[in-house]
């Protein structure tokens, strides 16, 4: 069975096809990718899809009420909404530096939630 996918690793958005192929080293035959990252993406998408999650957390004592954050690496797609619950229950206090780890090892996934900008205390 072949499956059509769009690679979302970069904005080029290559259209990929993936097919099981037991003679191939990685077990699949993939076409349409421009670079190697497309191959990894296609295999992951078939086996355990993951996504980056950018969102915000509450922040106190800063000039804005929300601080942008993201997962420091893609997280299991099935866990996104559960992770959002944890993130929305979290509040941090300024000052924050870009890259600060705010929530460690979310849901035991080894993925951390990091700040994507700095915010001074006001």
């Amino acid at each position, binding site marked *: 069975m072949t499956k059509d996918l769009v690679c979302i690793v970069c904005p080029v958005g290559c259209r990929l096809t993936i097919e099981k192929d037991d003679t191939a080293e990685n077990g699949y035959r993939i076409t349409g990718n421009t670079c190697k990252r497309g191959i990894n993406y296609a295999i992951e998408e078939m086996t355990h899809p993951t996504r980056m999650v950018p969102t915000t957390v509450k922040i106190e004592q800063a000039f804005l009420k*929300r601080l942008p954050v993201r997962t420091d690496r893609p997280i299991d797609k099935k866990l996104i909404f559960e992770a959002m619950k944890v993130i929305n229950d979290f509040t941090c206090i300024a000052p924050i530096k870009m890259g600060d780890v705010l929530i460690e090892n979310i849901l035991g996934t080894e993925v951390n939630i990091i700040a994507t900008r700095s915010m001074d205390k006001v």
Partner: protein
Amino acid sequence: MKKYDIVVIGGGPAGLAAAIEAKKEGIDQILVIERDRELGGILQQCIHNGFGLHVFKEELTGPEYAERFINELRSLGIDYVLDTMVLEITEDRTVHCVSSADGYRIIESQAVILAMGCRERTRGAIAIPGYRPAGVFNAGTAQRYMNMEGYMVGKKVVILGSGDIGLIMARRMTLEGAQVMAVAELMPFSGGLTRNIVQCLDDYDIPLLLSHTITKIEGKNRVEAVTVQAVDENLKPIEGTERVYECDTLLLSVGLIPENELSRSAGVAIDNATKGPIVNESMETSVEGIFACGNVVHVHDLVDFVTEESRRAGKAAAKYVKQEMATSMAILETKAQEGIGYIVPQRIRMENVGEQLPLLMRVRNVYHKAELSVKIDGVEVKRLKKAHLAPGEMERIDLPKALIEAHLGKYISVEVVKEA
């Protein structure tokens, strides 16, 4: 009155990159003027990832991308003012601005770089019949409310327009617990990046209704429902296809327009196709010494391209201040032909072209397996195969200087050639 070498208007990614590049070229007296309370422009509200793959070879969010440039600007000691609105620029490069801290100021500069970005098309521009209740937002405004101010704009949402902002907001609202019922798109194709359709709509089973529009908004105080209707090939609503969606919020993502009131005040000629200044190879406008870059010139979907273009503008402005710019009379023009919406730059002086001349353009339609044909005075000089072309994805062609010189003519044209 302080006199600057270069005044940059707008502290978004375009203004930041231009100022930094000019400084690196040895220009000392540079001032960046920003009307907002901080630098970074629109990037500060674009908290999603997808920025920087070309420039940093890393995938960053908007605020991360902005902060890297803000840090660099600060470390180079470039002056900037915040909460300061530029009101007028004159042809002789005098900049009039106002702020509550400093009042009304007039600043003279040898060169000016326009980097004011763009603004969202408002609902008036697309006229939907019905009431005008609360709950109708431009997608970018809603993005700012949610990501910076922390206001959730609604619970049951319909989105009109499938540009990137609309797609990104569909996912954003879903993640925050809203129900996004549908994204309606007037055209038979989406104006957004394919990856955003996949990761923002398909991932959450949000339907994308192509060739559909919104024909009615109901609700007196707050939106209660909208009517979605299919359109025919002339974009006219088809009777009998009406579907009512109960919702409390309508987001409009119906495009961006370069913000050029200031450019006009300075007498800068505007291109009807891009809605931005007509620029030459050095990103200089029709007024000598006034340069422009970023979304004020043409709407970009990738900030990386904004950075690259703005670096060229900053470098050229520095060259102008140092009086190293060749002001040739021999000018080549670019012409958007079959299938091409526009080309930037519009005018080219070969003396100022480096090894490659970058041409940025958008196609008018979606094409599969097509080719881009570049001609000089009607003679083909280059042909590029393209598996996929779409209006939502900007195309870039680098033409080697030697190739242009070998065919020196009056105009360079690009057209789409469909596969036979």
